[in-house]
């Protein structure tokens, strides 16, 4: 009796030990994911980063101050002056609501963290969640070992780190978690056929829709997978349960989000899901009929249905095509279109093309962002095919699609990262599985153990495998692992074998080869870890509003942006309007609390073009445009003194292009000399007289006598000039931000004279102007 009890308990203990170990590893992975993202806080400070996060931060502030209902109805008059923006209806609220909930929760426990702190740490917290979700997803696809490996890889994949360091308070931070979790629930439903998970899946999809525009990826990927399953003859009731509730509930829930609304049923991005929804029903019907009819009857019925069905389908497709074709963008939004046709944006929408994250990535950026995973993906794909299940088919489809999308836009590298981690996790786990099993199997024969031990050891494989994985993931010293595994080898000598080696003996590799391979794999992963830590510490932690440079006499901090924003916020009237290029709109509203003309939410092309036109016009014309917009201050970013490359002069050509796209009197060739953009003495007079040039270089020559621009590495073309319609009111310490004030209108009588004169002299020009003048 004791003999029969002992092994049972032993297995239980081993299982319990395994799950406790797995739990601990997951906990450590969570800690790793959180802490690797704190470099920015430690190296810089706990501050919101970049541009969009400032907007999200501002919205969160509003939410926590005024409550959820005011948030939905928020009309923001601080931006897009004089149009304003309905924030509640045009923003993806997921991130804001998440941080707001976190804030309320903490405050209900009387933990007085500021909104800023909560916002800064939202992204790291959610990346820990994301790595746990990756574990769950990969576990559903290929088991616990692969799950743990994938989770550890995702916890530190540089691509994801770049969007989720502490302070990077952007939609992607929570959206990636939502994306992976939705996929997990889909696969879970597919594996279990449980309606409970199907419902959870639609809720998770709802959260994803709330968080990020990238939800269209889900609503296209899952139908494609369903279609693939049907085509390859893998239809089952589980597939139906996984898909049908998601489409119905998911679409209904998605339509609840104001920014999506009726788009959930009206735009082409969602058509695939409905089409597949119809197909899956047809297939289900066919399977059902097949079940109740005799084979002969079925053939007859099939012929009948197919002929009628085809006719109906053709009619439907024709109607849909007609509908789609009648809309100007064919029902697709600009960003989605540029996904399908990578050259679309650069051809038609300069605003989308002008954003660097919408450009196609270069090869080095793949290496930078996913590093060794790029080489492991193919192995993972192969591992998915042996054996191929519905879940592993999904993984393969996911990687293939995301590789394509990431090739179109750098930004979508973020979607590739989880897929790469999952497949690499599978590949690594399988490889370790094979190698360690080979080692284990051959180890006893070498060390002259009895035959029984060999079997025993092979049964130990699973556990050992895990220890190796944790070892390389957590980067603990290798000795500990070997010690531990040795200890384990000795222990089970007396224990009865639970499994037999017959089946697994198939894939045994030579002992030496396996040892070398394991060492190489560990080295590879170690390299990955080193790269990730470097990327997190050096490449992706800069908050971009504070710049630092190392020189001989130590660290130098460039805090000019905040200097300028603080000045604006304290020393200008609260209702003054500040004009700047749209990049700085969000920051100006959030940090300086001043009304801006355009901001990073580029919803109104004409408005942006107006500012672009003003910036590329001569002083007087620019003054008139700005004055008509009620602008009081103009803010330009200038890096020429300290060598800050992403300043307004470098962005200027986009202003010209976008401005010229709406107001044709701005022509790009006027600003280029022989197709070259230059600001030195060879520059065109239009360039040297435009407002942007003047505001950037006003009195620049007096700094060093030569006016040498450190970014363009040249002396500027026009050195001495005066401003007649603008006056300098503030320039920051390193000249990176310069703020000018519009001078009040000139003496009225003189102005009247001038106007009447110009009226009489150039009626023709004013007529022509009428068409291209801005509406204000």
């Amino acid at each position, binding site marked *: *009796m004791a*003999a*029969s009890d002992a*092994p*049972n308990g032993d*297995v239980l203990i081993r299982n319990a030990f395994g799950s406790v170990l797995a739990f601990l590893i997951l906990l450590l992975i969570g800690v790793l994911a959180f802490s690797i993202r704190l470099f920015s806080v430690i190296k810089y*400070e*706990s*501050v919101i980063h970049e541009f969009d996060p400032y907007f999200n931060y501002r919205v969160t502030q509003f939410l926590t101050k005024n409550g959820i209902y005011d948030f939905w109805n928020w009309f923001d008059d601080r931006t897009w002056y004089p149009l304003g923006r309905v924030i509640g209806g045009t923003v993806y609220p997921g991130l804001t609501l998440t941080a707001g909930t976190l804030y309320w929760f903490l405050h209900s*426990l*009387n*933990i*007085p963290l500021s909104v800023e702190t909560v916002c800064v740490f939202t992204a790291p917290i959610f990346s820990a969640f994301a790595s746990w979700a990756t574990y769950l997803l990969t576990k559903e696809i290929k088991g616990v070992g692969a799950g743990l490996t994938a989770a550890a890889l995702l916890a530190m994949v540089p691509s994801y780190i770049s969007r989720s360091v502490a302070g990077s308070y952007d939609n992607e931070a929570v959206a990636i978690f939502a994306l992976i979790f939705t996929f997990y629930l889909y696969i879970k439903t597919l594996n279990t056929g449980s309606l409970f998970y199907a419902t959870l899946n639609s809720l998770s999809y709802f959260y994803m829709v709330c968080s990020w525009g990238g939800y269209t990826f889900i609503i296209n990927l899952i139908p494609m997978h369903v279609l693939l399953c049907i085509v390859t003859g893998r239809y089952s009731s589980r597939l139906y349960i996984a898909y049908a509730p998601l489409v119905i509930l998911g679409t209904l829930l998605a339509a609840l989000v104001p920014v999506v609304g009726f788009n959930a049923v009206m735009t082409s991005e969602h058509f695939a899901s409905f089409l597949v929804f119809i197909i899956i029903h047809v297939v289900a019907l066919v399977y059902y009929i097949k079940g109740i009819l005799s084979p002969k009857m079925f053939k007859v019925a099939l012929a009948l249905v197919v002929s009628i069905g085809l006719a109906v389908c053709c009619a439907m497709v024709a109607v849909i095509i007609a509908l789609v074709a009648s809309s100007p963008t064919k029902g697709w939004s600009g960003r989605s279109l540029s996904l399908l046709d990578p050259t679309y944006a650069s051809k038609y929408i300069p605003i989308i093309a002008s954003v660097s994250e919408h450009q196609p990535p270069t090869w080095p950026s793949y290496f930078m962002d996913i590093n060794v995973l790029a080489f492991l993906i193919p192995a993972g794909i192969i591992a998915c095919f042996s054996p191929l299940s519905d879940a592993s088919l999904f993984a393969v489809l996911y990687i293939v699609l995301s590789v394509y999308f990431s090739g179109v836009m750098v930004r979508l590298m973020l979607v590739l990262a989880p897929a790469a981690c999952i497949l690499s996790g599978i590949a690594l786990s399988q490889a370790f599985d094979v190698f360690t099993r080979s080692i284990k199997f051959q180890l006893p024969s070498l060390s002259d153990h*009895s*035959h*029984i031990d060999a079997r025993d050891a092979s049964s130990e494989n699973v556990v050992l495998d895990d220890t190796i994985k944790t070892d390389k993931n957590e980067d603990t010293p290798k000795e500990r692992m070997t010690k531990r595994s040795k200890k384990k080898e000795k222990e089970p000598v007396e224990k*009865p*074998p*639970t*499994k*037999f080696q*017959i*089946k697994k003996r198939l894939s045994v590799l030579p002992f030496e080869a396996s040892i070398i391979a394991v060492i190489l794999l560990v080295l590879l992963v170690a390299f990955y870890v080193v790269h990730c830590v470097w990327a997190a510490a050096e490449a992706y932690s800069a908050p971009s*509003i*504070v710049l630092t440079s190392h020189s001989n006499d130590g660290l130098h*901090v460039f*805090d000019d942006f*905040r*200097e300028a*924003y*603080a*000045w604006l916020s*304290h*020393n200008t009237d609260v209702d003054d309007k500040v004009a700047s290029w749209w990049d700085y709109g969000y920051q100006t509203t959030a*940090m300086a609390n001043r009304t801006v003309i355009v901001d990073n939410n580029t919803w109104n092309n004409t408005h942006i073009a107006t500012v672009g036109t003003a910036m590329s016009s001569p002083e007087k014309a620019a003054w008139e445009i700005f004055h008509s917009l009620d602008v009081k201050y103009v803010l330009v970013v200038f890096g020429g003194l300290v060598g800050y490359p992403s300043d307004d002069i470098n962005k200027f050509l986009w202003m010209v292009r976008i401005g010229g796209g709406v107001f044709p009197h701005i022509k790009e060739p006027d600003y280029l000399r022989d197709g070259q953009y230059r600001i030195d003495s060879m520059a065109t007079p239009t360039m040297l007289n435009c407002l942007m040039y003047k505001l950037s270089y006003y*009195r620049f020559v*007096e*700094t060093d006598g030569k006016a040498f621009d450190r970014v363009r590495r040249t002396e500027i073309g026009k050195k001495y000039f005066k401003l007649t319609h603008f*006056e*300098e*009111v*503030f*320039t*920051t*310490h390193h*000249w990176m931000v310069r703020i000018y*004030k519009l001078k009040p209108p000139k003496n009225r009588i003189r102005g009247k004279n001038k106007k009447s004169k110009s009226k009489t002299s150039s009626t023709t020009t004013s007529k022509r102007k009428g068409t291209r003048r801005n509406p204000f």
Partner: protein
Amino acid sequence: MLRFALTLLLFTLAFGVLSSSPVFSDLILAKVDRRIDLTSQIVRITTSLKVENAGSNPISEILLSFPENQAKHLAYLTATLNEGKGKGKASSGAGLPTEVVIPKDVPDSLTFYSVSLHKGLGKGESLLLDVLAVFTHALEPFPEKISQADIQLLLFQDTAHFLSPYKVMVQSVAVKLPEARVESYTKLEGTKLSGSELKYSPFHNIPPFSYLPIIIHFENNQPFAVAEELVREIEISHWGNVQVTEHYNLFHGGAKNKGEFSRLDYQARPYVRGASAFRRLVARLPPRAHSVYYRDEIGNISTSSLWGDSKKVDVLQLSYFCSTELEIEPRYPLFGGWRTAFTIGYGLPLRDFLFESDGKRFLNFSFGSPINELVIDTLIVKVVLPEGSKDISASVPFPVKQWQETKFSHLDLVGRPVVVLEKNNVVPEHNEHFQVYYKFNSLSMLREPLMLIFGFFFLFVACIVYMHADLSISKSSASYLAKVQWEEVQATVQQIHNIISHCLTAHDKLEASLRDLSRTGDVQACKATRKSVDSLLKGVSKDLKPLVTFLQSSPQAAHILPKVEELIAKERDLQERLMAKHTTVVDCYEKKLGGREIENRIASNQQKITSLRQEVDDLMEFIDEI
């Protein structure tokens, strides 16, 4: 200039009215020395009075009067009795109590403060009185708006004669100016300007309420840092820390900047093109201040330096010598009229500031701001006491507005009591210590850690309960029962699986013993193994029986039962054959037969054993997968 003239007119009128009013009392000011310090934005007027009682009645209070335009700027007034006969500054420590009084028969435009003497001044007696009056915003920038390159010029108005209800015998005025440059000043006879000091020569026999306006127009480029509002929050933690957080709302109170600001000019010649601006302030923090931070609402302000004088800390804790100096630089230089806001925070060791007396604890802390020469328009000091403090009272050396609030901080249940003190027009002279008394039970300190411990404890208990409790909605439903049964069947099958695998191990042992036999020829050892295996297997077969009967009775197990039975049968067969083989081999060895002979004898058996073993293994795997 027009306003200026008007004030002059007003005062001459007042003077006219006053001169006709009756003599106030019998006191005579035998000698008055006024020193006006105009070196910073804060005007300090030190007056030393020699008071003589010319009347017959003893007098216990002395009146000081200020014209209206000065009275509204008066921030601080103290009168001390100077008992030292010599030149030494032996003023008698504590100041004499002063209060506002409104005597009869005096014009409204004067504000009177009465200084009460400890003991009356008898007939013919005299005493020396030092009066320090501090004024804020008393310097008027003129011109009011200057450009970046201009220097800041200020106007100061006062009276050359000491305005007093008493007759003054001899009086002199000395004005100390910051720099040599003086634009203009009222010239009276005997006025001397030497260096940065302006002297109005002694006046003799001045009647009461005489007013002789003087105006000085001079250059002053001192930082005119004015805190519109300063909120100091002093939070006491009995774990050993006092956390001070100071929110400043600062502006440059001097002549306003005309608009244009050129960084180029400012950088090239900061002391010429930006003389009136200031770029840094120095705060003298209490000794052993730690974790100092300096930030505003949009993040750290990276321009600040801290000098800790840790070496100088001595036992006496003379705070002046061992303070920590914090140099703070706002994000941008402040020109006239520019504003900024920032927050300074630092921690201090509790034992330096918290003391105990009569069962009560009290906090002893300085009232004003640690920043040098800062004028504060509204100062709010909040002392956050630990949760559970009782009997709270505050004592401040000067009148302040006082009330209590409640603040909720980390894990509070009822909130922390906050003592709020508010005072307008605060100058560095107000940096005196104030005390907040309260009662606090040290055990309350443990409340929050205990709350946390119990919180997590209950969380884990809840988790354990959840893991062990069966939360199915209907326990009688068919599917639930089926699930339970299926679990039981699984467990049984698992047990059978384990038992069989035990048997197989035993078989392996037998085989191994046979191999050993062939190697060593030790028949006895082989037999012993056989015996132990035999007893083991017997016990096993006993164990198997109830399990199989359970499986037979269970409807759920119907589809696995045949397989299980087949497995058991096959295993038994295997067992028998193995035994037979074993017996044969051992027999053969005992008979000392050759190896080939043995092989021949067991050959048929051996084949079956291998095939059976294969089948059993397959079945085992099948069952294992269930």
